[in-house]
């Protein structure tokens, strides 16, 4: 299972970074999304991988570490909000700058 989880995390983060390096805003947003999925899985795995163990300390000795699960919940919520924001921003940039290239430069920087 460790092998599978590690491969998935690596795949997600690798694809995310690959998409982030594109020059259009939509792939960049998708890249951020994949990156945050990969990172969330990584945080989840930080407490060690367990099968058939509840993340509840009160339930007795065989339990999964509950803290990373609580952390990843927070991280998912924050990541969701941030993705929504960057999506709106990309749309606004598309309408205001007339292009979805992230490195778009217009002639207003002349002195």
């Amino acid at each position, binding site marked *: 299972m460790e092998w599978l989880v590690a491969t998935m995390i690596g795949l997600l983060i690798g694809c995310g970074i690959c998409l982030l390096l594109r020059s259009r805003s939509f792939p960049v947003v998708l890249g951020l999304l994949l990156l945050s999925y990969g990172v969330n899985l990584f945080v989840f795995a930080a407490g060690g991988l367990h099968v058939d163990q509840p993340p509840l300390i009160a339930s007795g000795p065989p339990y999964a570490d509950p*803290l990373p699960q609580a952390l990843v919940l927070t991280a998912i919520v924050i990541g969701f909000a941030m993705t929504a924001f960057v999506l709106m921003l990309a749309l606004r940039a598309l309408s205001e700058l007339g292009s979805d290239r992230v490195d778009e430069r217009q002639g207003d920087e002349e*002195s």
Partner: protein
Amino acid sequence: MNAPSLPLPLLLPLALGALLLIGARLPLSVQRFIGLLGTLCVLAAALDLLALTAQGDVLATAIGGWPPPLGIVLVCDRLSALMLTLTGLLGTAALLYASGGLDASGRHFHALFQFQLFGLVGTFLTGDLFNLFVFFEVLLIASYGLLMHGGGPARTRAALHYVVLNLVGSSLFLLGAALIYAATGTLNLADLAVRLGQLTPADARLAGAGGLLLFTVFALKAALPPLHAWMVPAYAAASAPVAALFAILTKVGLYAMLRLLSLVPDTGSGSGFAGSTTWLLTGAAVLTITAGSLGALASTRLGTMIGYLVMLSMGTLLAGIAPGTAQGLAAALYYLVHTTLITAGLFMLADLVANGRAQGDRLIIGDPPRDARILAPLFLLGAIAIAGLPPLSGFLGKAWILIAVQDLAATGPAVWPWIWAAVLGSSFVVLLGVSRAGVLLLWRRRGSASRQGSAANAVACRSGLARPALVGTSALLAASPLLMMFAGPLTSFTLATARQTLDNGEYVAAVAGLVPRTSAVNEEGAHR
């Protein structure tokens, strides 16, 4: 020392921000009143914490009564109180400036401003690595909104880069925090300080990788090259009070870096950080100083130039921190107060100059702005302070940093020639840059057709000086002579702060004091 009133500066901006969000249709004067009230409350609470911690006590409180290391703790030592006071001062001045009319150019300015304060206060008070991440996100999302305030293509473009880079930074932050958790089983800073010293070599390497990832993230926030590209366009595009408030955002990165470094267990060398850390920080400092001063010299706008000066000051601060000695850190903290207030004041001054001039803040010969008689002395004051000329506080801070790094020469790595060259060279370059800017903006006027030009100027510029804006700007710039006059008590305070920060014993003891004696859950904090 337990302090139940510790969450107060955190909750007030949150409550007022939510109130302002609901009351977005309230008249602007009411919003301004509520906003100023909130900011003054933060300032008052910060001053209170400053007084409480001045004797060396570390205040700590566990939110909801949940004991550390699993519960959320707020901790306030001298360093936190100092940063909070700085936030309060800067926030008050920026809000005063915005109340001159800039807050009318978009919606929700005051609500976002309160949330920004909430995030800043939280970052300085939190005693937990994950909550540091959460408060980073809070202050970042407020800063995205503030940066976009007023709209326009330039802001949108700068904001897109700023947001994407910071989101990548957030992902790296989570990776780093997860690595540290995997290695140590805790995210509580005080707990980390204890456990980092007891790791097996394999776990220590894992934690080290996490620490370096976090260092990268904080370097991104602090705009250290090569991670600085987002910073200058964003700061130059933001409206003046927002850019002024952002002057402390880069220092947040530095503060987090300092907290992280103070956790690293003492290897017994007795002369600050380990040699490799010193070299890493020195390299970053020299690189930042070089890039910042070259950028400042090459700028074609005053706003851009001040953005590069902010970056340059980050380098100078790192140079003071690099040796890891109390003297160096104390000098850097003194310089931090100085540079935050002065660069913020200069951002506002640049906006005042741009408003009074047909050419904006572009560094070309045009007509001097209206009210140049008021603006020129202020610019002179700011220029002397930021370049580090005697007799103002910039000189004192830089001189102290130089002396402090030289003291290290006997015991630690010989980094001082690098730092001396960078700091002294950059002072000269900055002096060149700001005097050129001052001459072009405020002194020389176009020779021919000057009458026609000044008529056009009078039409083109928006309005006269708004009084709150002028008060805010001069208050910030007046900080430099004040910092000089009260240098005695201030330097002894920063020295005490530096000693407390580097020796994390009191911090750990304060958080450990929150743990109830009979707690079975805590004994199981180690997860494996």
